[in-house]
């Protein structure tokens, strides 16, 4: 598990395929700690000196100030943290954002359109539309691909 986590932090695996890592990160203290440790290690390696406790404490302070936890405030918190670490790409930030959300805020940050607009659709979400497109649209060599989606759906 820790190996997979490390790979995720280094951006070596597909975020969409890491649901189980996020779940584990949420549920067991060991993995959660490892998540923070690996980020620190990575940042040190990349010469991106950033102190781990700073982010945690800042977010906790924000949350303490705002007990009602409305979604726009959650976004504001996310934005502020983004400014602390400008070297991270938007994409890798979305990993951290989802984990931060799972840790501290709950799932509703994910429902904010600002976040979802740049999201990639999950793997199987639109399969049925793709199959329908290949079935009924003309000029489609992808017609022979049909089988793939069929297999995926079963």
């Amino acid at each position: 598990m820790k190996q997979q986590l490390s790979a995720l932090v280094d951006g070596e695996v597909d975020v969409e395929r890491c649901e189980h890592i996020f779940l584990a990160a949420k549920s067991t203290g060991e993995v959660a700690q490892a998540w923070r440790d690996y980020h620190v290690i990575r940042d040190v390696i990349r010469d991106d000196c950033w102190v781990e406790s700073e982010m945690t404490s800042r977010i906790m302070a924000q949350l303490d100030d705002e007990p009602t936890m409305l979604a726009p405030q959650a976004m504001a918190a996310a934005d502020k943290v983004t400014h602390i670490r400008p070297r991270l790409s938007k994409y890798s930030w979305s990993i951290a954002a989802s984990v931060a959300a799972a840790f501290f805020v709950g799932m509703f940050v994910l429902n904010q359109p600002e976040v979802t607009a740049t999201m990639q659709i999950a793997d199987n979400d639109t399969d049925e539309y793709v199959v329908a497109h290949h079935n009924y649209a003309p000029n489609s060599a992808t017609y022979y691909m049909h089988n793939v989606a069929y297999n995926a759906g079963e």
Partner: protein
Amino acid sequence: MPSKYDFRRACLPVLFLAAISQTVVAEEDLWATMQKTASAARELNYQGLFVYHNGAMIRSVQITHIYEGGREFTRNVVLDGRPREVFSEGDDIVIFNAKNDKVVIEKRRGQNLFPAMLPTQLYPLKQNYKLKFVGQERIAGRLAQVIDMIPNDNLRYQYRIWSDTEYGLLLKMSMLDIEGHTLEQIGFNQVAMLHTKDLDWFQPKIDATKPYVMDDTTDLTHTVDNLVVANLPTGYKKVDQIQLKVPGRTAPVQQLIFSDGLASVSLFVEPMVKGMQPRVGKKSMGSTNVYAHVLNGYQLVVVGEVPAQTVEQIAQQVTFKK
């Protein structure tokens, strides 16, 4: 030597004009080749084996095609993966699809399947693509003319076609992205002309041990409604609108199909109902791009073998008439 320079200066415009007129003539000739290629796939009798590549996926297909009395008969047998046979007679397509313990029979409408990929009406293509002669190559033991179809903008991919020098049959076709990477490729490994008009091959291999069932999950009704796509990307036109009954959905799904003559894009529209997970975002799989968003309580999904920019532009242009 001044006289030499004068001579060059005098020659330049002439050479330049000659070069221009040559390319103009060549392009007209190339369109004539394209027209021959579009017709040959429909009017010749042939049998062969072709392979379709898309990303990591490869499928081999055996094809038999006969043109008899103004009607086209085709059988495609997909040799890799799940057994699948596709029969077409004119625009009617019937598919025998082995699924676990049964064979599902599906009915489809006319599609331009390989090698009949080019439309017989080339006018829309002329608006959106320029042709360039690349050279000659051997494909499946046949000599082919290689022609590039270069798009006028970045709203469609580039295509390269290999047309049999003698018969005009499309031997191979590939789709390339803006950087010139091959996204999709389909081409014969072997092909031969048939001298028979016998149709005894035009029947499926029946597996007596399995039940055959009709697929009735989709209902094709042509509809018109209050949906408007204001500014379609340049060169794209709506070619069809159908209504799909999808199992597990209370309301039918509208499917609008757009095409620039070669590439096609589907727009799916369905009302959001309680418990339905909204889909928002984009995705790219090989040559296929997907863009999903929610508008006025409707789920919109755009899917097409076109650049990401094109599916996004179509999705952004959808409005509902009052």
